[in-house]
């Protein structure tokens, strides 16, 4: 920390009439290491590494990623092995999470379901925010007829009833005859993104419109900055916060919505397992066998919590005022 009084003396000597009052610094500033240029992103990263919330979230997400990539490391049970004599058996030493209606090991199914559920949630919300964010920024920055056109297109998509839209899109893809689980997940992700991007577009568009009218954008234009520079350097960092929060919430709802699509027979099918399907399968047995719902829903909650914490930490780190 440099001593503010020194600055005052220097400035006064230069005839610039700085009073001590004006140089009354907030003492919360980072330790000044002059000479080393810092930017918003490097400062945000430094800040993130010191946040316990961020570290916990990253550890949970990394763990889930490992489970998704290598489910066989965590269980030796076949998630699709059925034994009806074990139907709805409660948790025990044999099966930590118990057995479901068809006598399948819930723990094994949760482990194997991680891959598809995580993929649907993460890829779906990323794609949604990417599409919505790009279109929203363009609409907000350029305005005029482009904004009108893109907003109307967005309204068409948000006007489609979700389930109906999902059925139409997924059935259209189905007829092309893809059957691998990955391709199916890809289609589900695409359908989810196509039907939900208008919301994130609206969020970022309104943030972009308000950012565009700020004086700092005017100053950048006066300096001769290109539209891309203004969009990426000035508007994007200032529009990111609301959409980041939205994306983390979206992630959880996508994992659940995937179950709706599976329930309708257009989402994932056996042998692919997903948390959403497990939750929706348990709906008739909640009173007699609550563990059917409890374990997959609990893991889903934990996952969403980790991503919400990550989003919050990143949002706070990107706001210099909150550091």
């Amino acid at each position: 920390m440099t001593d503010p009084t020194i600055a005052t003396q220097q400035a006064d000597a230069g005839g610039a009439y700085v009073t001590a009052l004006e140089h009354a610094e907030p003492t919360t500033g980072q330790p000044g290491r002059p000479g080393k240029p810092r930017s918003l992103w490097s400062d945000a990263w430094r800040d993130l590494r010191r946040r316990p919330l961020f570290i916990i979230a990253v550890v949970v997400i990394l763990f889930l990623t490992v489970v998704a990539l290598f489910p066989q490391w965590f269980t030796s049970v076949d998630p699709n092995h059925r034994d009806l004599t074990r139907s709805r058996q409660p948790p025990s030493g044999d099966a930590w999470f118990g057995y479901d209606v068809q006598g399948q090991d819930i723990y094994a199914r949760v482990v194997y379901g991680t891959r598809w559920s995580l993929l649907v949630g993460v890829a779906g919300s990323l794609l949604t925010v990417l599409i919505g964010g790009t279109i929203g920024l363009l609409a907000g920055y350029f305005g005029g007829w482009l904004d009108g056109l893109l907003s109307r297109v967005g309204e068409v998509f948000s006007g489609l009833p979700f389930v109906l839209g999902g059925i139409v899109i997924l059935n259209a893809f189905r007829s092309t005859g893809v059957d691998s689980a990955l391709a199916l997940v890809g289609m589900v992700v695409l359908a989810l993104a196509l039907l939900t991007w208008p919301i994130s577009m609206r969020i970022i568009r309104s943030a972009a419109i308000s950012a565009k009218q700020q004086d700092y954008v005017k100053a950048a234009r006066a300096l001769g900055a290109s539209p891309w520079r203004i969009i990426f350097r000035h508007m994007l960092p200032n529009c990111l916060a609301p959409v980041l929060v939205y994306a983390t919430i979206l992630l959880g709802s996508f994992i659940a919505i995937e179950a709706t699509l599976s329930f309708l027979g257009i989402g994932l099918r056996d042998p692919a397992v997903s948390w959403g399907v497990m939750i929706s399968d348990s709906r008739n047995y909640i009173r007699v066998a609550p563990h059917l719902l409890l374990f997959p829903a609990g893991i889903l909650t934990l996952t969403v919590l980790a991503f919400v914490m990550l989003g919050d930490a990143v949002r706070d780190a990107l706001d210099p005022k909150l550091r």
Partner: protein
Amino acid sequence: MSETVSERAATEPAPGEAILEVRDLVKHFPVRVGVLFKHVIGQVRAVDGVSFELRRGETLGVVGESGCGKSTLAQVLMRLEPPTSGTALYKGRDMFAMRGAELRKLRRSIQIVLQDPYTSLNPRMTVGDIVGEPFDIHPEVAPKGERRAKVRELLDVVGLNPEHINRYPHQFSGGQRQRIGIARALALRPEIIICDEPVSALDVSIQAQVMNLLGDLQSEFGLSYVFIAHDLSVVRHLSDRVAVMYLGKIVEIGTEDEIYSHPTHPYTQALLSAVPVADPTVRGQRQVIRLEGDVPSPVDPPSGCRFRTRCWKAQDVCAEEVPELVTRVAGHPSACHFAEERSVVP
């Protein structure tokens, strides 16, 4: 730094020559109604035929009340808004016709200091990035390795601690933020800086510091200022010449002494009579001119002289004939049919 100035002085027009000539500048904003099919129902005549010239090294003060078109004038001169008509010559070349590389060069020569130091700095950029951005946009000005040093030098010039280069705008006070804005405007070594009410958002005690800084920078770098303000005493402190605006037109223009000691336009006289005087002994001795009514809408300005609806001298001719901005009395132009000198400031 002083080297650059002297180098430039050798190749550029000598002091006193006009480097910016504005002729009949007009900026109208269309008033649109309708949701789907918009149609224009009128024009806001924000700037309506403004002419002036700015000489090298001089400060032209522009005063007028809110909504008279001062800030629009600044935006048009910065080419942030296209003009409706009129020309502005920068060193004899038409500014509004410039494109591409020529426009980029113009950006280096004319810069702006904005009014509100709280919104004119990107809250998510460090001071180093804000002041260094001009070099990123115009990389030919400074090689990459030298930029950091240049930014520190600029911070020093405007009276900020160069060690604070990695801080964010919210860690500074209003006056300090305005200094950052001035440093950004100075970075490209412009010849003209348009100051759009640079001190009106600051505390009075800080206003004087920032104005003194602007004055020091002017003599150090040979800058020309278009200094826009609504505070007459602020303008008087810095300006060589003053233009008084009312409803998009300049009503009177002259040197600081001509405007303040020998005002001839009724509007200027009314404005000056409203300036508070710090001396209690003369209180009550001078005449305060109170204007009746409000500023008319710029969508539908009065015919003839725009000030006639609030003028105590108004006669029939004022409604019929637009008074030209020409010298009638007291040796400087005034747009009033009945211009007469009247000293209102004791």
